[in-house]
């Protein structure tokens, strides 16, 4: 999976283009968006912003232990855990992609 690029690495990436930016300070705060984060943001439409605050019946995701989350996602995929729609979603991701998503979701605070 892709990791967040640390701030200093991002600035190295930018080094060739520094002249385009008036200040390095603002650029340093922005980090590359990982695959896990990009994919996980689309979970929020049902599971609430940052995986918190849903409308009641759909479970929130924030702070879910990584291994437990991954297991659930894989069980949805194999059909071991029954669901109404999650099986239809997780089949759209490889196991490595599900790992990246579980890694990212585990970083969210409940």
């Amino acid at each position, binding site marked *: 999976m892709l990791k967040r690029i640390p701030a200093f690495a991002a600035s190295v990436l930018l080094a060739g283009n520094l002249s385009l930016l008036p200040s390095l300070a603002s650029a340093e705060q922005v980090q590359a968006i990982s695959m896990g984060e*990009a994919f996980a943001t*689309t979970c929020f*439409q049902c599971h609430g912003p940052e995986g918190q605050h849903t409308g009641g019946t759909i479970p929130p995701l924030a702070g879910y232990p990584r291994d437990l989350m991954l297991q659930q996602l894989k069980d949805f995929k194999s059909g071991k855990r029954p669901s109404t729609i999650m099986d239809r979603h997780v089949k759209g991701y490889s196991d490595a992609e599900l790992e990246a998503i579980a890694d990212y979701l585990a970083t969210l605070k409940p």
Partner: protein
Amino acid sequence: MQKLQRRTLVKALAAAGIASSTFGLQACSSNDKSQANGKRVVIIGGGFGGSTVAKYIKRFDSSTQVTMIEPKKTYMTCPGSNWYLAGLVDVDYLTHDYETLKTKHGVNVLHQMATGVDAVAKTVTLDNGEVLEYDRLVVSPGIDFIYDAIEGYSEEVAEIFPHAWKAGPQTELLAKQIQEMPQGGRFLMVAPPNPYRCSPGPYERVSMIAEYFKKHNPTATIMVLDPKTKFSKQALFGEGWRDVYGQMIEWYGSQDGATVTKIDVASKTVYSDFDEVSADVINVIPAQKAGKIAFTAGLTDDSGWCPVDQDTFESKIHKDVFVVGDACIAGAMPKSGHSASSQGKMCAAAIVSSLNNLPMPPTRNVNTCYSLVAEDYGISVVGVYENKDGRLSGIPGAGGVSKAGASLQERKMEADYARSWYQSITKDIWHS
């Protein structure tokens, strides 16, 4: 005064064929604040697509200056508007403001109409004459209607036979007509041809009107005349309609000759090869195309929609202009609020990555559309999409519709999830 000079100058530069982006960075305009460091994003439209882009650009990079142009002070969602017709929710439930986007995320929301885009000078003109400069522009204006496809129909007639396909006064007008319909009367829907906003929407609508009639007008009938041969989640809707409403809803497709070609307002009659049908309430949902500003800005192709890169949603016609939501051509993705929001997130990631010279993450888009067949009877369709050979395509094996013949308990669960989905997505976009 200064603004006017600036505008004249931009026009002169554009006329002279000089790309003014370098100049634009230094020049003074109303969205050129101290934090603008080559990272000014202007967004046209504050619906599902535009508001998502605004929030997620700020979430990914708070130092980007984001200005969103939306004429309305509050936004009423189409999702849930059918539930309103059934009397299950009220207007407040469906209405959202821009306070959180403004105060928490620092999005500059201008309640104006965008009237022009100059993709060379990289400026947007507003109703009040103001000119905004951008480094990246996002266009998410939703749909516009093709009024002249049916003889006798027009924008004026839409005030008599409401489409209610943009939520607001039209939705309230349709609700009133349904409530005032005589006992035992007929409700007629003229369904739209493909492609249109919200594929299951017309069929959820007649379900919700049936829900209303069941309680308040049990001998009323509902007829749908459709220019298509089939529709989204058809088998599931059919199963639900039979189980819950018996014979109340009749549907006819183009194979039955049900493509409506003419409407007569005075006699409340619609004409097709199928038959001449008169009704007490007529809901005409016209054919659709991208929102007007997409045409003005030259972002559309012959199809009437906007071709875009299938990962970033950058226009294939104008560089540094992005189109998300109903207005864009997103391969196999349906035109839904869920799709618009998913696309908005990928687009925000693309813009933040490029403005900060960072690698773009891989993208994956999703759609989840719940429909209520009855208050406690929900069904859904799911799709997961990836860019395959330049077209967003459903990933084989993923997605699909709810199981046929599921238990009432499962249908109830999906109805509860539908309501929960509404709370989550509106909170994600407008209130968090």
